[in-house]
Protein backbone atom coordinates (compact mmCIF):
# COMPACT_ATOMS: atom_id res chain seq x y z
CA UNK A 1 0.00 0.00 0.00
CA UNK A 2 1.49 3.30 -1.09
CA UNK A 3 0.16 6.45 0.61
CA UNK A 4 -1.29 8.85 -1.93
CA UNK A 5 0.91 11.58 -0.47
CA UNK A 6 3.96 9.91 -1.98
CA UNK A 7 2.52 10.17 -5.46
CA UNK A 8 1.66 13.81 -4.89
CA UNK A 9 5.15 14.60 -3.63
CA UNK A 10 6.69 12.82 -6.63
CA UNK A 11 4.40 14.77 -8.94
CA UNK A 12 5.42 18.05 -7.31
CA UNK A 13 9.11 17.19 -7.62
CA UNK A 14 8.77 16.28 -11.31
CA UNK A 15 6.80 19.48 -11.97
CA UNK A 16 9.50 21.54 -10.28
CA UNK A 17 12.27 19.89 -12.29
CA UNK A 18 10.30 20.80 -15.43
CA UNK A 19 9.89 24.39 -14.31
CA UNK A 20 13.59 24.59 -13.52
CA UNK A 21 14.38 23.28 -17.01
CA UNK A 22 12.26 26.03 -18.54
CA UNK A 23 14.16 28.60 -16.48
CA UNK A 24 17.76 27.54 -17.08
CA UNK A 25 17.94 26.06 -20.59
CA UNK A 26 18.42 28.07 -23.81
CA UNK A 27 17.46 25.39 -26.32
CA UNK A 28 13.75 25.70 -27.20
CA UNK A 29 13.55 21.95 -27.83
CA UNK A 30 14.66 21.24 -24.26
CA UNK A 31 12.21 23.87 -23.01
CA UNK A 32 9.42 22.05 -24.86
CA UNK A 33 10.49 18.77 -23.30
CA UNK A 34 10.40 20.40 -19.87
CA UNK A 35 6.85 21.56 -20.56
CA UNK A 36 5.94 17.97 -21.47
CA UNK A 37 7.47 16.86 -18.17
CA UNK A 38 5.31 19.37 -16.29
CA UNK A 39 2.15 18.19 -18.08
CA UNK A 40 3.14 14.64 -17.21
CA UNK A 41 3.55 15.48 -13.53
CA UNK A 42 0.07 16.98 -13.58
CA UNK A 43 -1.25 13.78 -15.15
CA UNK A 44 0.35 11.71 -12.39
CA UNK A 45 -1.41 13.78 -9.75
CA UNK A 46 -4.72 13.42 -11.66
CA UNK A 47 -4.44 9.63 -11.76
CA UNK A 48 -3.41 9.45 -8.08
CA UNK A 49 -6.45 11.48 -7.07
CA UNK A 50 -8.62 9.42 -9.42
CA UNK A 51 -7.52 6.30 -7.56
CA UNK A 52 -8.00 8.01 -4.19
CA UNK A 53 -11.57 9.13 -4.89
CA UNK A 54 -12.47 5.97 -6.85
CA UNK A 55 -13.71 8.08 -9.76
CA UNK A 56 -12.91 7.90 -13.45
CA UNK A 57 -13.04 11.65 -14.01
CA UNK A 58 -9.35 12.06 -13.26
CA UNK A 59 -8.40 9.51 -15.90
CA UNK A 60 -10.66 11.22 -18.46
CA UNK A 61 -8.88 14.49 -17.73
CA UNK A 62 -5.54 12.79 -18.33
CA UNK A 63 -6.84 11.68 -21.71
CA UNK A 64 -7.66 15.28 -22.63
CA UNK A 65 -4.33 16.54 -21.32
CA UNK A 66 -2.50 14.02 -23.54
CA UNK A 67 -4.47 15.26 -26.57
CA UNK A 68 -3.67 18.89 -25.75
CA UNK A 69 0.02 18.04 -25.31
CA UNK A 70 0.10 16.36 -28.71
CA UNK A 71 -1.50 19.40 -30.37
CA UNK A 72 0.87 21.76 -28.58
CA UNK A 73 3.93 19.78 -29.65
CA UNK A 74 2.84 19.68 -33.29
CA UNK A 75 2.35 23.45 -33.50
CA UNK A 76 5.40 24.27 -31.38
CA UNK A 77 7.79 22.11 -33.37
CA UNK A 78 6.43 23.58 -36.61
CA UNK A 79 7.20 27.03 -35.20
CA UNK A 80 10.72 25.98 -34.21
CA UNK A 81 11.41 24.54 -37.66
CA UNK A 82 10.14 27.74 -39.26
CA UNK A 83 12.28 29.92 -36.97
CA UNK A 84 15.31 27.78 -37.79
CA UNK A 85 14.65 28.23 -41.52
CA UNK A 86 14.62 32.02 -41.13
CA UNK A 87 17.36 32.56 -38.54
CA UNK A 88 19.59 29.47 -39.05
CA UNK A 89 19.74 29.31 -35.25
CA UNK A 90 17.32 28.38 -32.51
CA UNK A 91 18.92 30.01 -29.51
CA UNK A 92 16.09 31.34 -27.39
CA UNK A 93 17.96 34.60 -26.72
CA UNK A 94 17.79 35.55 -30.39
CA UNK A 95 14.05 35.07 -30.69
CA UNK A 96 13.26 38.65 -29.82
CA UNK A 97 11.26 39.84 -32.81
CA UNK A 98 7.74 38.89 -33.72
CA UNK A 99 8.16 39.60 -37.43
CA UNK A 100 11.46 38.05 -38.41
Amino acid at each position, binding site marked *: *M*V*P*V*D*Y*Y*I*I*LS*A*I*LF*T*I*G*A*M*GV*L*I*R*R*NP*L*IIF*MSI*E*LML*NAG*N*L*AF*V*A*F*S*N*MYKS*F*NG*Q*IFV*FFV*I*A*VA*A*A*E*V*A*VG*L*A*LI*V*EIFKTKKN*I*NIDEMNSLKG
Partner: protein
Amino acid sequence: MTSELIVFLVLSLVAIAAALGMVFSRNAVYSALFLVLNFTTVAVFYLLLGAPFIAMSQITVYAGAIMVLFLFVIMLLGVDSLAPSKSLPWQKPLAFSLAFILVVESVYLLISRAQPNMVVTAPDIAVNSMDNLREMAMTMFNQFLLPFEVTSVLLLVAMVGAIVLTNREKVGRK
Protein backbone atom coordinates in the same frame (compact mmCIF):
# COMPACT_ATOMS: atom_id res chain seq x y z
CA MET B 1 7.30 -2.59 3.59
CA THR B 2 5.25 -4.12 0.86
CA SER B 3 6.52 -5.02 -2.57
CA GLU B 4 4.37 -2.29 -4.06
CA LEU B 5 6.10 0.35 -1.96
CA ILE B 6 9.52 -0.96 -2.99
CA VAL B 7 8.53 -0.77 -6.66
CA PHE B 8 7.26 2.75 -6.13
CA LEU B 9 10.40 3.97 -4.38
CA VAL B 10 12.80 2.46 -6.93
CA LEU B 11 10.80 3.75 -9.88
CA SER B 12 10.42 7.20 -8.37
CA LEU B 13 14.20 7.43 -8.00
CA VAL B 14 14.55 6.41 -11.65
CA ALA B 15 11.92 8.96 -12.70
CA ILE B 16 13.57 11.83 -10.81
CA ALA B 17 17.03 10.87 -12.08
CA ALA B 18 15.74 10.72 -15.66
CA ALA B 19 14.07 14.11 -15.29
CA LEU B 20 17.27 15.66 -13.94
CA GLY B 21 19.25 14.04 -16.73
CA MET B 22 16.80 15.49 -19.25
CA VAL B 23 17.27 19.01 -17.89
CA PHE B 24 21.04 18.90 -17.44
CA SER B 25 22.40 16.85 -20.35
CA ARG B 26 24.22 18.89 -22.96
CA ASN B 27 23.09 16.85 -25.95
CA ALA B 28 19.47 17.25 -27.05
CA VAL B 29 19.22 13.63 -28.21
CA TYR B 30 20.23 12.39 -24.75
CA SER B 31 17.61 14.70 -23.26
CA ALA B 32 14.93 13.18 -25.47
CA LEU B 33 15.95 9.64 -24.53
CA PHE B 34 15.98 10.52 -20.82
CA LEU B 35 12.48 11.88 -21.24
CA VAL B 36 11.37 8.62 -22.87
CA LEU B 37 12.70 6.79 -19.79
CA ASN B 38 10.77 9.16 -17.55
CA PHE B 39 7.54 8.64 -19.50
CA THR B 40 7.96 4.88 -19.28
CA THR B 41 8.38 4.96 -15.50
CA VAL B 42 5.33 7.18 -15.20
CA ALA B 43 3.41 4.64 -17.30
CA VAL B 44 4.37 1.97 -14.74
CA PHE B 45 3.04 4.29 -12.00
CA TYR B 46 -0.26 4.43 -13.89
CA LEU B 47 -0.34 0.63 -13.89
CA LEU B 48 0.28 0.63 -10.13
CA LEU B 49 -2.57 3.10 -9.75
CA GLY B 50 -4.95 0.84 -11.66
CA ALA B 51 -5.21 2.84 -14.87
CA PRO B 52 -4.03 0.42 -17.59
CA PHE B 53 -5.66 2.32 -20.47
CA ILE B 54 -3.93 5.57 -19.49
CA ALA B 55 -0.63 3.70 -19.11
CA MET B 56 -0.86 2.29 -22.63
CA SER B 57 -1.88 5.67 -24.10
CA GLN B 58 1.05 7.21 -22.26
CA ILE B 59 3.46 4.81 -23.94
CA THR B 60 1.94 5.04 -27.42
CA VAL B 61 1.25 8.78 -27.51
CA TYR B 62 4.04 10.24 -25.38
CA ALA B 63 6.92 7.80 -25.64
CA GLY B 64 5.92 6.81 -29.16
CA ALA B 65 4.48 9.65 -31.18
CA ILE B 66 5.54 12.83 -29.38
CA MET B 67 9.13 11.81 -28.64
CA VAL B 68 9.63 10.49 -32.17
CA LEU B 69 8.48 13.89 -33.42
CA PHE B 70 11.00 15.53 -31.09
CA LEU B 71 13.82 13.29 -32.30
CA PHE B 72 12.86 13.99 -35.92
CA VAL B 73 13.10 17.73 -35.35
CA ILE B 74 16.36 17.49 -33.36
CA MET B 75 18.00 15.46 -36.12
CA LEU B 76 16.42 17.54 -38.90
CA LEU B 77 17.77 20.77 -37.50
CA GLY B 78 21.11 19.24 -36.50
CA VAL B 79 21.28 21.31 -33.33
CA ASP B 80 22.24 18.59 -30.89
CA SER B 81 24.14 20.99 -28.70
CA LEU B 82 23.95 24.75 -28.88
CA ALA B 83 27.07 26.85 -28.56
CA PRO B 84 27.17 28.18 -25.00
CA SER B 85 25.95 31.74 -25.15
CA LYS B 86 26.90 34.33 -22.61
CA SER B 87 24.29 33.60 -20.02
CA LEU B 88 23.23 35.77 -17.18
CA PRO B 89 25.43 34.85 -14.21
CA TRP B 90 22.63 35.05 -11.66
CA GLN B 91 20.21 33.01 -13.75
CA LYS B 92 21.06 29.54 -12.44
CA PRO B 93 21.18 30.34 -8.70
CA LEU B 94 17.94 32.28 -9.05
CA ALA B 95 16.33 29.38 -10.92
CA PHE B 96 17.45 26.89 -8.26
CA SER B 97 16.14 28.99 -5.38
CA LEU B 98 12.83 29.63 -7.15
CA ALA B 99 12.51 25.89 -7.88
CA PHE B 100 13.16 25.11 -4.21
CA ILE B 101 10.47 27.56 -3.14
CA LEU B 102 8.08 26.08 -5.71
CA VAL B 103 8.58 22.49 -4.58
CA VAL B 104 8.17 23.41 -0.90
CA GLU B 105 4.99 25.36 -1.41
CA SER B 106 3.42 22.93 -3.89
CA VAL B 107 4.10 19.96 -1.61
CA TYR B 108 2.73 21.89 1.36
CA LEU B 109 -0.44 22.97 -0.49
CA LEU B 110 -1.14 19.58 -2.04
CA ILE B 111 -0.53 17.69 1.19
CA SER B 112 -2.55 20.07 3.31
CA ARG B 113 -5.49 19.86 0.88
CA ALA B 114 -5.31 16.10 0.34
CA GLN B 115 -7.01 13.96 2.93
CA PRO B 116 -4.28 12.48 5.10
CA ASN B 117 -3.79 8.77 5.63
CA MET B 118 -5.42 7.81 2.36
CA VAL B 119 -3.63 4.95 0.68
CA VAL B 120 -3.62 4.10 -2.98
CA THR B 121 -5.26 0.74 -3.39
CA ALA B 122 -3.50 -1.85 -5.45
CA PRO B 123 -5.13 -2.74 -8.75
CA ASP B 124 -7.08 -5.90 -8.08
CA ILE B 125 -8.15 -8.35 -10.71
CA ALA B 126 -11.44 -6.59 -11.35
CA VAL B 127 -9.68 -3.33 -12.14
CA ASN B 128 -7.34 -5.02 -14.57
CA SER B 129 -10.13 -6.66 -16.54
CA MET B 130 -12.14 -5.14 -19.36
CA ASP B 131 -14.66 -3.75 -16.87
CA ASN B 132 -12.30 -0.92 -16.10
CA LEU B 133 -12.10 0.07 -19.75
CA ARG B 134 -15.86 -0.28 -20.19
CA GLU B 135 -16.60 1.94 -17.19
CA MET B 136 -14.15 4.55 -18.43
CA ALA B 137 -15.65 4.53 -21.92
CA MET B 138 -19.14 4.90 -20.47
CA THR B 139 -18.01 7.92 -18.47
CA MET B 140 -16.24 9.47 -21.41
CA PHE B 141 -18.96 9.05 -24.00
CA ASN B 142 -21.85 9.96 -21.72
CA GLN B 143 -20.65 12.58 -19.29
CA PHE B 144 -17.74 14.00 -21.31
CA LEU B 145 -19.03 13.72 -24.88
CA LEU B 146 -18.83 17.44 -25.70
CA PRO B 147 -15.23 17.86 -24.43
CA PHE B 148 -14.29 14.78 -26.42
CA GLU B 149 -15.62 16.32 -29.64
CA VAL B 150 -13.96 19.65 -28.83
CA THR B 151 -10.68 17.74 -28.42
CA SER B 152 -11.05 16.31 -31.91
CA VAL B 153 -11.55 19.83 -33.28
CA LEU B 154 -8.47 20.93 -31.34
CA LEU B 155 -6.38 18.20 -32.95
CA LEU B 156 -7.69 19.21 -36.37
CA VAL B 157 -6.76 22.84 -35.72
CA ALA B 158 -3.27 21.81 -34.59
CA MET B 159 -2.80 19.76 -37.74
CA VAL B 160 -3.93 22.59 -40.00
CA GLY B 161 -1.77 25.04 -38.06
CA ALA B 162 1.35 22.90 -38.39
CA ILE B 163 0.80 22.46 -42.13
CA VAL B 164 0.16 26.17 -42.70
CA LEU B 165 3.21 27.19 -40.64
CA THR B 166 5.68 24.93 -42.39
CA ASN B 167 4.22 25.54 -45.86
CA ARG B 168 4.39 29.32 -45.73
CA GLU B 169 6.96 29.85 -48.46
CA LYS B 170 5.06 27.96 -51.13
CA VAL B 171 1.90 29.95 -50.40
CA GLY B 172 3.81 33.24 -50.60
CA ARG B 173 5.37 32.39 -53.93
CA LYS B 174 2.05 32.08 -55.74
